[in-house]
């Protein structure tokens, strides 16, 4: 559908097609592919751009020029005027429909930002000199226009933007609260519009979204990803970012800057009355200590995972490593709940290099070996890769009789007693965050069951 003609120019057709099909394509490919494609295309576009400008330069120096003062000056002036007229006219029309109007300042910057370049030059160059005897004059003129816009306007626009204090695009990360509320607002406004009977643009947007979700996404996006709602996807992304930050922040025990406070989940959980906690608890301070220890170890684990860390490239969210992490974590959890609570304190945090060396030489330290003979009831179903991962773990727990320590963690954290509810792949990803403290303590002191040969890579859920 998107391939259909979207206008006369093939360029605009291409752009429209790309814009429309992009969300579906992106959802279908893995994160690695996405990164690869993105940087590959960036490289290509850079190369093409460079080639064209080399060509431009060469033809400036070596081409036949026909300089005509009037024509050239008029070209420059008229192209500027045309740009301004276009911008002003369109914003006049658009502002009628906007609450936040585009101010003169904005319009000026938009008009000023009209740089001519490769396309203009190529179009002129392709003119046939038999039909256009004045071609050389055109060429000269267009080269002059290009030079003018690119050098003069291009170089001065940055100081102008700073000078005029134009509002720039917000670079800040969106917090999850903002995301929740943005969605909430969307629904709210749609609801109010419905009550007023007013088919405003929220109404149509909502309808389009629903249509999109119901029909199109089912056809075009493979597998379960079609169902993943935006909020969950956002939550994933945020967690990924935090995890990456953790890795990048090195082996130190400082937490990512997103949470500089000492508030942990404990503070937020409502205090349970003593009757609720049927089982003995660790003291809170001990909990805190343990959690801290676990967190530092978490950082060291994540360091070990492959991360491609260029300054422009986001560290490859260890696609494989993530799954390892998750498997390992679950195994750990399993282990932990089977045995009594850990007593072995972790070794003091090493520097990253030492850690890496240590871990590299002894990969199995992180692996989880099979040590579950003592617990006959654990049944880990490794057969089908598509079953909800955490599902099988939970089933294993549920069958066990006594879990002396399990609700201690539950009390302190968000974790609940293992439920037999089927959980989708989505959930396990941010259970990570909650169970993060409980994770890999086990690994250091007592390798658990091997989980590395479990199910294969899952595609990254965007």
């Amino acid at each position, binding site marked *: 559908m998107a391939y259909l003609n979207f206008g006369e120019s093939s360029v605009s057709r291409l752009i429209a097609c790309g814009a429309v099909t992009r969300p579906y394509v992106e959802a279908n490919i893995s994160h690695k592919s996405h990164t690869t494609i993105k940087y590959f295309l960036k490289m290509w576009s850079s190369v093409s751009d460079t080639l064209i400008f080399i060509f431009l330069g060469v033809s400036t120096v070596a081409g036949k020029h026909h300089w005509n003062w009037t024509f050239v000056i008029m070209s420059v002036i008229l192209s500027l005027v045309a740009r301004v007229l276009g911008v002003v006219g369109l914003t006049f029309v658009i502002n009628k429909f906007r*609450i936040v109007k585009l101010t003169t300042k904005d319009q000026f910057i938009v008009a000023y930002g009209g740089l001519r370049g490769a396309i203009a030059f190529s179009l002129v160059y392709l003119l046939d000199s038999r039909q256009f005897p004045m071609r050389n004059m055109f060429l000269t003129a267009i080269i002059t226009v290009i030079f003018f816009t690119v050098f003069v306007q291009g170089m001065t626009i940055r100081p102008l933007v700073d000078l005029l204090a134009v509002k720039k695009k917000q670079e*800040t990360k969106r*917090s*999850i*609260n*903002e995301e*929740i*509320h*943005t*969605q*909430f*607002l969307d*629904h*709210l*406004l749609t*609801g*109010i*519009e*419905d*009550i*007023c*009977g*007013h*088919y*405003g643009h*929220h*109404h149509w947007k909502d309808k389009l979204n*629903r249509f999109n979700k119901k029909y199109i996404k089912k056809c075009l996006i493979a597998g379960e990803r079609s*169902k*993943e*709602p935006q*909020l*969950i996807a956002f*939550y994933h992304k945020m967690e990924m970012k935090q995890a990456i930050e953790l890795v990048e922040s090195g082996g130190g025990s400082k937490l990512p800057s*997103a*949470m500089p*406070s*000492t*508030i*942990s*989940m*404990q*503070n*937020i959980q*409502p*205090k349970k009355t003593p009757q609720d906690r049927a089982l003995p608890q660790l003291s*809170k301070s001990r*909990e*805190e200590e343990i959690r801290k220890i676990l967190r530092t170890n978490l950082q060291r684990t994540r360091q070990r995972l492959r991360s491609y860390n260029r300054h422009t490239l986001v560290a490859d969210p260890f696609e494989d490593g993530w799954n390892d992490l998750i498997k390992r974590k679950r195994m750990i959890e399993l282990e932990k709940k089977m045995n009594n609570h850990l007593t072995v304190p972790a070794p003091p945090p090493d520097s990253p290099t030492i850690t890496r060396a240590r871990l590299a030489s002894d990969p199995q330290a992180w692996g989880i070996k099979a040590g579950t003979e003592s617990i006959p009831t654990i049944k880990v179903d490794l057969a089908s890769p598509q079953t909800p991962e955490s599902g099988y773990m939970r089933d294993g727990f549920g069958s066990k009789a006594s879990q002396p320590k399990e609700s201690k963690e539950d009390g302190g954290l968000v974790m*609940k007693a293992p*439920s037999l*509810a089927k*959980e*989708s792949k*989505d*959930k396990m990803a*941010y*259970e990570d*965050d*909650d169970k993060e403290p409980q994770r890999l303590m086990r690994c250091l002191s007592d390798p658990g069951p091997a989980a590395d040969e479990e199910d294969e890579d899952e595609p990254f859920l965007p």
Partner: protein
Amino acid sequence: MGASQSGRVPEFQDLTDKTGFSIEQLKNLHNRFVYLTQDEDTLRREHLENMSDLALNPIRRQIIEAFFDSRNLGQKEKGCLQEIGFEEFVTVLAFFKPPKPHIAEEERKTIKKEKLRFLFNMHDTDNDGVITLDEYRRVVEELLSSTETLGAETAKAISDAAMLEVASETVGQMGPDEFYEGITFEQFMQILKDIEIETKMNVHFWNLETMHCGK
């Protein structure tokens, strides 16, 4: 209809001053009100619940509640009304009026505060002035309830992370034994200050001719 319409103009005049809608908009809204209530005098919850358009909205319960919440209607006592008249209907809708383009900074702040207050009231269902974890959790659950692949775990995790964030940002340091009661209105304002609510939370009332009135 002419006679009854003209009889309403004086009361519309009061409403104009109170809510900021124009007479034209008020007339259209009144038509809509009459359509919704099927010619009765007051609007009740059932009228709104019977709307088919609203059925697909995940937070429709809260939206409907918001109309009957006496905090939004400017009344001192807390609680909800069972039925509302046209005046209350319009008062609630006035929260969604876009601010005029050139207004002073303080006025903009006031408007922003009012809108945020409306949102806050929508979340704070037990009227205690704080959004507790449970309430927030319910909000997230409802938001995500339109998708099938949701379990309680998801909503819990998300809402917990959200609360954690709010607490971190607003309170800063807290000992492990202190308990964070919930989000107060000031904290709510603080965390949402970056969303420009006064520009986003608006419905265009200027084009009310597209309303469906009477059928």
